[in-house]
């Protein structure tokens, strides 16, 4: 038994991508047998994938970095460069992979009832599994070109799913915008990869990180990578595709889209802290680290403020959550920028200050919380649309009388995303507030004020959608089917669990991820 488990753990990096990829193509065939068998098959595939992710994450959190080489037992290093493609998993990508594994499970359970009335569901589930494979590939890979390939797989599958409501012009338009933006982002990413390859004759992240000499071309590559990945992550002012895509895609797809956005954010962190980490945080480059930190803080503050203000103004349920999601990404970015700006130097070694370390922990913790909180709110929006066939806040009202459980899930999501105690969002935002306050009190003040506005935004939704008199046109509205409630319930339970026991989560999962961010040398050591 142990031998089998060891074998699974050893090959888990490959299996995590291979299982959903194979499952995606088999779904079409299984779908010919019948929709029920197909639905069971898809959930089994995602459950197996998640099981492998959890096994791998547990291994990484216990034993440290895991490197998996494709097509051989060693990386074939000659003159300090790796020949083979490899996956390298440290605390950071293990952490992000857990999020990417949870979201598709919830989305698929939710889809059973939510998408039941639609045709083309074989293709729908195939694309969801392709998205999952691409997302997990982006997260686990240790090769930059491989990252680009998985990014493309994810983008194409995502665009097709955003346009799933083909009869709605807005959905097709949103998908078109998404694919154009993704293609431009991917092209620039490829350009940066070409710059690295031209200079260092390598595509492996660890090898590039080891050899990087911070030439003028490296600076160009850094700027291009930051801009391209920040656009894919939805940082203001490159965020405009996000409300279109999140708002027009089916709610179950939006939940997985959140994962792909976070995978891009992961890529951004990997570039800054790992590929450039060893060179950026030296005495010679200390000025650059500080300036980069300040630039990221500025973008983060703009992202939070514009995200919140635009959310407050929206009258479409899903579009409002999409803007709130942008603001939430700003909080993560703020924490990372704050951490970057606090590097101190003793001799030739760079160390991050205590408040910077705490900010980094808060930022990483918030990645997980954001995926859950925003994901739950999108599922609630989908449930409201399913029941009332309406998403306009001007037309909805009084639904709490008909949809009691959905209302409770919305309140949990509202409290969590606004950072109200004792929900998970409070724990991560508290860490971000306190650490950024020590770096610059003004940052904490802006962050807290925007959180209050975020609460006001969702109070508006609560009032407009759920409170008020029972409207005659919604008198026939019923609570959504059980599978949708179960999907929302799973996320709500995780939110409450993390909210009640944040320390367990921070100590065992968040801290290894934050430490991995600060330790580029270990990542390089995993290959060289």
């Amino acid at each position, binding site marked *: 038994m142990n031998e089998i488990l060891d074998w699974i753990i050893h090959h888990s990096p490959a299996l995590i991508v291979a299982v959903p990829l194979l499952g995606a193509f088999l779904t079409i065939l299984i779908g010919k047998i019948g929709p029920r068998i197909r639905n069971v098959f898809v959930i089994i595939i995602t459950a197996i994938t998640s099981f492998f992710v959890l096994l791998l994450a547990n291994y990484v959190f216990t034993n440290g970095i895991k490197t998996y080489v494709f097509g051989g037992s060693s990386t074939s290093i000659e003159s300090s460069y790796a020949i083979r493609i490899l996956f390298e998993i440290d605390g950071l990508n293990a952490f992000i992979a857990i999020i990417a594994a949870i979201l598709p499970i919830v989305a698929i359970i939710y889809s059973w009832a939510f998408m039941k009335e639609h045709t083309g569901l074989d293709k729908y589930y195939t694309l969801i599994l392709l998205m999952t494979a691409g997302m997990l590939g982006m997260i686990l890979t240790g090769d930059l070109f491989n990252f680009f390939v998985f990014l493309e797989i994810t983008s194409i599958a995502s665009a097709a799913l955003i346009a799933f409501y083909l009869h709605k012009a807005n959905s097709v338009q949103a998908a078109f*915008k998404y694919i*154009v*933006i993704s293609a*431009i*982002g991917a092209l*620039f990413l490829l350009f940066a990869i070409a710059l690295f390859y031209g200079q260092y004759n390598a595509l492996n992240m660890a090898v590039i990180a080891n050899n990087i000499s911070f030439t003028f071309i490296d*600076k*160009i590559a850094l*700027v*291009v990578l930051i*801009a391209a990945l*920040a656009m894919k992550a939805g940082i203001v*002012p*490159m965020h*405009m*595709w996000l409300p279109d895509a999140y708002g027009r895609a089916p709610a179950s797809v939006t939940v997985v889209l959140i994962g792909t956005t976070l995978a891009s954010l992961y890529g951004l962190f990997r570039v800054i802290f790992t590929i450039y980490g060893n060179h950026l945080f030296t005495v010679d480059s200390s000025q*650059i680290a500080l*300036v*980069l930190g300040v*630039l990221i803080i500025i*973008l983060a503050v703009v992202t939070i403020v*514009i995200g919140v*203000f635009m959310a*407050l*103004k929206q*009258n479409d349920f899903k579009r409002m959550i999409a803007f709130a999601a942008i603001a939430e990404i700003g909080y993560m970015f703020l924490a990372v920028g704050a951490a970057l700006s606090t590097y101190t130097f003793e001799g030739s070694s760079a160390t991050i200050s*205590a*408040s910077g370390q*705490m900010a980094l922990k808060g930022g990483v913790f918030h990645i997980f919380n954001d995926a859950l909180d925003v994901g739950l709110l999108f599922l609630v929006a989908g449930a409201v649309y399913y029941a009332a066939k309406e998403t*306009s*806040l*001007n*037309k909805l*009202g*009084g639904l709490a009388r008909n949809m009691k459980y959905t209302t409770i899930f919305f309140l949990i999501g509202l409290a969590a995303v606004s950072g109200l105690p*004792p929900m998970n969002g*409070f*724990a991560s935002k*508290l860490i971000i507030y*306190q650490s950024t*306050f*020590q770096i610059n009190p003004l940052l904490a003040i802006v962050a807290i004020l925007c959180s209050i506005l975020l609460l006001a935004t969702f109070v*508006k*939704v609560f*009032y*407009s*959608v759920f409170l*008020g*008199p*029972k*409207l*005659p*046109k919604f008198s026939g509205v019923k609570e959504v089917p059980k599978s949708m409630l179960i999907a929302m319930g799973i996320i709500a339970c995780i939110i409450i669990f993390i*909210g*009640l*026991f*944040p*320390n*367990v989560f921070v*100590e065992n999962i968040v801290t290894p991820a934050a430490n991995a961010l600060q330790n580029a040398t270990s990542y390089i050591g995993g290959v060289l």
Partner: protein
Amino acid sequence: MFEWFEPLIKTLTTDSGFWNPIVWGIVFIITFLVVYIIRGMGKKEYKKNTGQTQVFLSGNPEYEKEKMHVPGANVYWGFTEALKWLYKKFDKMHTGNISDYVLWFVIIMGIFLVIMVVI
């Protein structure tokens, strides 16, 4: 016996403070009980199915249900009206035109590039 529970209730320490939801929960329950007791001491003059339960709009008749509900666009109207100047700028930014989306990307990349090259 309850050793497994110990790590769960450990306090989350931040750099300059701490957070323990269990302590918060206990404080919340105590506060709730105190409020509930004080509320119980209040006057009990509420009578169901009497004029007390009717909607009172300065003596005007009640509108039909759909007209009674304040739609989302009217919530925080004062806030958005007061910040109209700001929202006009934000709206101008969100054109929905994909060329503008790409333009913003190029602008940000250009700003980053200039700053990084200058350093």
